[in-house]
């Protein structure tokens, strides 16, 4: 069973019925059983990986939080290192199998199946459990002593595929608390799930053939520019759609997962963009990579040294180094192919450059005074959208040379001279896409201006709410790209 399968809503609905029928103290057991069933149904071949993460993290956390480790941080450290190594190795092993050539390397061995792709959501639950482990090591959370409750936190089924990545202190207690039935919450959750399906099935999957066509062709120049835009829309629909489903399903059960997006395409600079896109990954990296690296002894020493010799820039060297390491880790997390390292470094470069050029921008704005003009805001948004699209396109080519070749083609030949190849979409497809993307944009604008649309609708005429929800359902059912005869696409982020 995948999230795109019609069994998924049915499975969730059945689980909800049981969940709200059992006494509060039993509810978490229902969730745990449900998560187990989902995993068995969705990818039992990979159960071993999940068990490895669960058992090793649980045992290591117990060792660190109880007994001798409780008082002495030094005694906790070996457990942390061992467990992180085991889990990171498992994750890296899976990811390395996706490297070109790895298939041949492993042909005939017992792990040949790994070439099929990453075990269900391993990147996400490994990240989440690693965060938990570090928190226990730092003493900021108490280790969970009940293996069932811990397993539920690590493998809560809606977020298993592509996050969001939650912290134990935020999610753990919610999962095990009693949640009485709440009609409004259920309705909000269902609406969010529908909206997620709309973005995934109607927009992202309908665009998928065009993106694939443009990827396969030797597309350069204008075609490449079109590809970066289409890929941005596809990835946005796919990833935010999947996360909306995860958040919506959780909401139905009374569990609030952290938000992962806040209108990222309305960002005006890179830092802002990364505070709005895949926010939970950003928070994780900041908490568990950026801060520890920033305050580590070598970086502090380097900072002191640089400050003494390089003046103003030297003050920032430590931060930039930590930023570099963070982006390296983010790149590696996405994949071990060189393009993801390049992608990480490009992001880092843009952030560092914007930081360094800040005084220049300030002088420019004080002279022209455009900063407060509405049109300048729009310009900044479009500039950011195009820039991030160009960097994001690095995902698409395992070999960075191919990427740079295309990137340079944007400047070497006039764009209109480069024909855009056939995209394989019909007029009806384009019509649906135009309406769908229009709706998505409108919703984002309204959310930006007025906050939660669901709250607004709840306060208004109920028939309007019913009508819009039903319309959304019909749009997903009729215009979604799913079922027999369609090459279904997995969630893009499930492969990272």
């Amino acid at each position: 069973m995948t999230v795109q399968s019609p069994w998924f809503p049915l499975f969730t609905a059945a689980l909800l019925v049981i969940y709200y029928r059992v006494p509060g103290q039993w509810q978490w057991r229902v969730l745990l059983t449900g998560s187990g069933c989902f995993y068995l149904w969705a990818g039992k071949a990979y159960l071993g990986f999940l068990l490895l993460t669960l058992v090793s993290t649980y045992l290591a956390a117990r060792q660190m939080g109880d007994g001798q480790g409780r008082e002495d941080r030094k005694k906790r450290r070996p457990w942390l290192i061992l467990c992180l190594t085991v889990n990171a190795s498992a994750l890296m092993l899976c990811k390395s199998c996706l490297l070109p050539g790895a298939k041949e390397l492993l042909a005939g061995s017992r792990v040949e199946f790994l070439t099929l792709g990453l075990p269900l959501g391993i990147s996400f639950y490994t990240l989440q459990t690693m965060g938990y482990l570090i928190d226990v090591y730092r003493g900021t959370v108490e280790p969970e002593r009940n293996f069932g409750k811990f397993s539920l936190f690590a493998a809560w089924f809606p977020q298993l595929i592509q996050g969001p990545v939650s912290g134990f202190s935020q999610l753990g207690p919610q999962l095990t608390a009693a949640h009485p039935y709440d009609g409004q919450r259920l309705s909000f959750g269902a609406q969010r799930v529908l909206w997620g399906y709309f973005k995934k099935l109607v927009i992202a999957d309908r665009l998928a053939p065009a993106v694939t066509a443009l990827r396969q062709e030797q597309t350069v120049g204008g075609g490449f520019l079109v590809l970066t835009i289409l890929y941005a829309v596809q990835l946005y629909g796919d990833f935010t759609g999947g996360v909306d489903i995860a958040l919506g399903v959780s909401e139905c059960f009374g569990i609030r997962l952290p938000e992962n997006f806040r209108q990222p395409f309305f960002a005006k600079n890179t830092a802002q963009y990364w505070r709005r896109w895949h926010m939970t990954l950003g928070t994780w990296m900041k908490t568990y990579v950026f801060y520890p690296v920033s305050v580590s002894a070598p970086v502090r020493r380097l900072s002191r040294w640089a400050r003494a010799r390089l003046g103003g820039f030297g003050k920032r060297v430590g931060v930039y180094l930590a930023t570099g390491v963070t982006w390296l880790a983010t790149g590696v997390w996405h994949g071990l192919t060189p393009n993801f390292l390049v992608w990480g470094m490009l992001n880092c470069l843009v952030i560092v450059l914007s930081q360094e050029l800040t005084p220049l921008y300030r002088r420019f704005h004080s002279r022209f005074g455009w900063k407060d003009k509405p049109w300048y805001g729009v310009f900044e948004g479009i500039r950011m959208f195009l820039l991030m699209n160009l960097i994001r396109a690095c995902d698409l080519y395992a070999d960075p040379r191919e990427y740079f070749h295309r990137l340079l083609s944007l400047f070497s030949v006039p764009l209109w001279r480069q024909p855009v190849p056939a995209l394989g979409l019909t007029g009806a497809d384009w019509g649906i896409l135009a309406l769908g993307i229009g709706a998505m944009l409108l919703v984002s604008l309204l959310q930006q201006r007025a906050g939660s649309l669901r709250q607004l609708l709840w306060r208004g005429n109920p028939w309007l709410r019913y009508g819009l929800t039903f319309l959304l359902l019909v749009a997903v059912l009729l215009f979604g790209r799913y079922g027999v005869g369609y090459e279904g696409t997995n969630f893009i982020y499930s492969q990272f």
Partner: protein
Amino acid sequence: MKKWCAFLCGGLILGLLQGLLAPKYTGLTQEGGLIREYYQNAGGNDVIFIGDCEVYENFSPITLWQEYGITSYIRGSPQQTIWQSYYLMEETFRYETPKVMVFNVLSMKYDSPESTGSQSRREAYNRMTLDGMRWSSCKWKAVNASLTREERRWGGALTYLFPLLRYHDRWSELTAEDVRYLFHFQPVSHCGYLMRTGVEPMTEALISAPMTDAELGQTSWEYLDKMVRLCREHGTQLVLVKSPGLYPVWWWEWDRQVTEYAREQELLYVNMLPAQEEIGIDWMTDTYDGGLHLNVSGAEKASAWFGKILQEQCGLPDHRREETVSALWEARCRAYEAAKAEGR
């Protein structure tokens, strides 16, 4: 209250959409509408034919009536597999208990949905057989036995429960027919027989790949065993038939195994292939598609020959003197003759 009203309205609209988007099988692919026609004609049939195109194209119940007074109906559908035939048989017994159940053995060559060739075509045929069945445990079992790998991946049986999930993208192909037949369907058969009046002679022998496996598959035998048991439970005689279709080839090795099985189980097995001359089939005039299936003239000849065997060896009564039955069948005969004259 408001909420329940909203749910009801939503359900109704979705139901309507589902009805609108489901294929109506009124145009070129009338075969897809055959299975659903049975329910209006259930009851009072002495013989029920079950099987693939070799029953609904090659036997005519009207001829059986006209020649022998045998009341019969055909529950056939394209590339109907033996597991589908079995569950159709099981379902038929819920509506009536015929004296004879005739099963065409050609489909025993398939042992799994994967072994039937093109999987997209298999899926289309599954739909043509299963969508027409009324909902019951028989249909559920038939669906689960029939699903292709691709169908299992995409919701499987759930898409049969809610066909909207399968036909959701037909909105771009809707025609006036879809609206016209939203609440009812247009019968296309004559007691399950799909009449073909055209003639396209068989001018050359059809090339066929050689037999590679002399043994009919295990699944086929298991379902045949189940058929035998089911018919015995209901006191119905099971007759196995190989209709006189030349293609796909029915290998003599398979024939030997079925003959042996029939002898062991004391069943009547009629292979019509060696009797073509006796039946009088002329492949220059009795086929509408170059030798793949019989046209109406061929089907009438085959039915007249097979009807005699049914009458003599199964002891079927002649109903032509029974007034009510006769009136019903005479009306059917008139419709049949009219269609034949029109060349439909």
